[in-house]
């Protein structure tokens, strides 16, 4: 079951993987009757590209392998997706996914460091992951290891001041093995970001902070993989990949209604969603 050094799946298999991840997240959150499925759905292809597209080097049977590439889920409310990906990557048995948010389960509402193999840091209160990732960069330098560190941020999360503290510091430390990805689905808890607390001009902000910035369609696996590979060539500055996504991607009635943030689908809604996902 374990994966040693990842090999990229072919594109069609990755698309299938993305579909099964959506179905697993749907089942997990519907069973738990809580969670943030729509925030998971917008990140599915990003995670698929990272874990199954040959980007991250990891050993699921050796989660603390010192040379592993780091992945940090800073938008901790996408925990169900992280858990599903880790299960599919062989870190633990997929059957455990159905215990999400139950008493004595290792699958907490938001990720707790090392509670499950493969969880690099605790997140859930937003804004922390980029700083922790920078700590892994500095630690890697001291330990003479040249792994890469990927941090997935939510767009609303970028309203947290700590993100910009980390942005300043990562540029200062020339952290060119640090890659931040923003799942830019344009919605936060209360509504559209442009209405609630605008982030634009977003790419310009990161450039002004000294980052190399790429923009990409966050649901195009091939484009994501190419972008992840392209930023590996950037030297002397950290990279930001702004991934334009759709909240609730893959289920039409979730895409159309941002109030799905922070709630699970009812069993009836889940049945409709499943049908859509299976037909897509």
């Amino acid at each position, binding site marked *: 079951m374990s994966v040693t050094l990842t090999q990229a799946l072919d594109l069609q298999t990755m698309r299938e993987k993305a579909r099964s991840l959506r179905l697993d997240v749907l089942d997990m959150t519907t069973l738990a009757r809580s969670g943030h499925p729509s925030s998971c759905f917008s990140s599915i292809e990003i995670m698929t590209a990272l874990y199954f597209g040959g980007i991250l080097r990891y050993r699921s049977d050796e989660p603390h392998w010192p040379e592993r590439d780091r992945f940090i889920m800073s938008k901790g409310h996408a925990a169900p997706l992280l858990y599903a990906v880790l299960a599919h990557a062989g870190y633990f048995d997929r059957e455990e996914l159905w215990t999400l948010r139950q008493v004595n389960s290792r699958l907490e509402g938001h990720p707790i460091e090392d509670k499950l193999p493969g969880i690099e840091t605790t997140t859930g209160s937003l804004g*922390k992951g980029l700083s922790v990732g920078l700590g892994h960069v500095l630690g890697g330098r001291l330990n003479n290891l040249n792994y890469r560190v990927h941090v997935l941020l939510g767009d609303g999360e970028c309203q947290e001041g700590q993100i910009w503290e980390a942005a300043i510091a990562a540029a200062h430390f020339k952290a060119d093995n640090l890659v931040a990805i923003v799942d830019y689905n344009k919605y936060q808890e209360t509504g559209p970001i442009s209405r609630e607390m605008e982030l634009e001009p977003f790419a310009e902000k990161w450039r002004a902070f000294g980052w190399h910035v790429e923009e990409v369609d966050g649901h195009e696996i091939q484009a994501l993989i190419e972008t992840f590979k392209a930023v590996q060539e950037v030297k002397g500055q950290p990279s930001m990949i702004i991934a334009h996504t759709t909240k609730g991607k893959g289920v039409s009635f979730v895409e159309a209604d941002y109030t799905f943030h922070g709630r699970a689908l009812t069993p009836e809604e889940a049945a409709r969603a499943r049908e859509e996902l299976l037909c897509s």
Partner: protein
Amino acid sequence: MQLGERAGLKPAPPLRDVFGEALLDLCRDNPRVVVLDGDLSNSTQTKYVREAFPQRFFNIGLAESNLISIGAGLAACGLIPFLTSFSSFLLCNAYDQLRISIALASVNAKVVGSHGGITLGKDGPTAMGIEDLALVGGLPTFTILVPSDPASMHKAVRAAAEHVGPVFLRSSRLAAPHIYPDHDCPFEIGKANVVREGSDLTIIGCGLMVSAALDAAASLADEGMEARVIDMHTIRPMDVEAIAAAARETGAIVTAEEHLLHGGMGSNIARIVAATHAVPMRFVGLADTYTDSADPYDLFEKYSLTPTDIAIAAREAVAAKR
């Protein structure tokens, strides 16, 4: 009168200076130790490490939240990060980071808050750490150390590095005298040190207030009252046995701390006394208030934290025994 003078204690350099030396010693011996500072290395005295081991020192700038979470990442890499700034800036600016990035998963990071208590004096209440012990007390996995003199500071820094898990260590600006005469002391996390024997009551202090407690005990001795004095260098896990024994054997307890009474050392000791051997208690510390900006000794006077105040509390506690 200087702290410790009445008790005949020898003067010593400020605890923050001793911390700087102790941390440098530790860095020499342990290559896994790294130091992060929030642009206050000239005050926290991590500047010695900065000079000697520039590759293991990071000035994170005025960004305490970032500093704490970066530290969590370094700890995850198997390093032992010492994360330093003023106590109030770390606990108040970065509380969520301490909670999420460090406390929840019991990450092996060491948080050193300098300028704890009121004795940074003239910079005033915005920079004082008068609520730091209460705040870090709200993070269940943190071990909390408050050394009282140079010897115990050296030991505390070593103990913090050796302990696996989060540690908060409080340092302060004012010169504390030597409590331990031979510059060496026992220091076991969770095991309080009895620094003066006595059977009429027990005074329990931490940090600078251990010296003040010894001064008070010297005055009380002139009146024929023998106070046991305990250096409670570990606030968590607290030495339940030493507290229960003090209650049982001396029948009255006074606590003294440079901290708000609400949520500090004394209130935690009271919880243990009530559950083990209830005896009269009195509490010396800051009643719900912020202080003025002034010389530390003027603040001790105004806010009733002097050896005289401890002695008054001691007489009251002993009187309440009957």
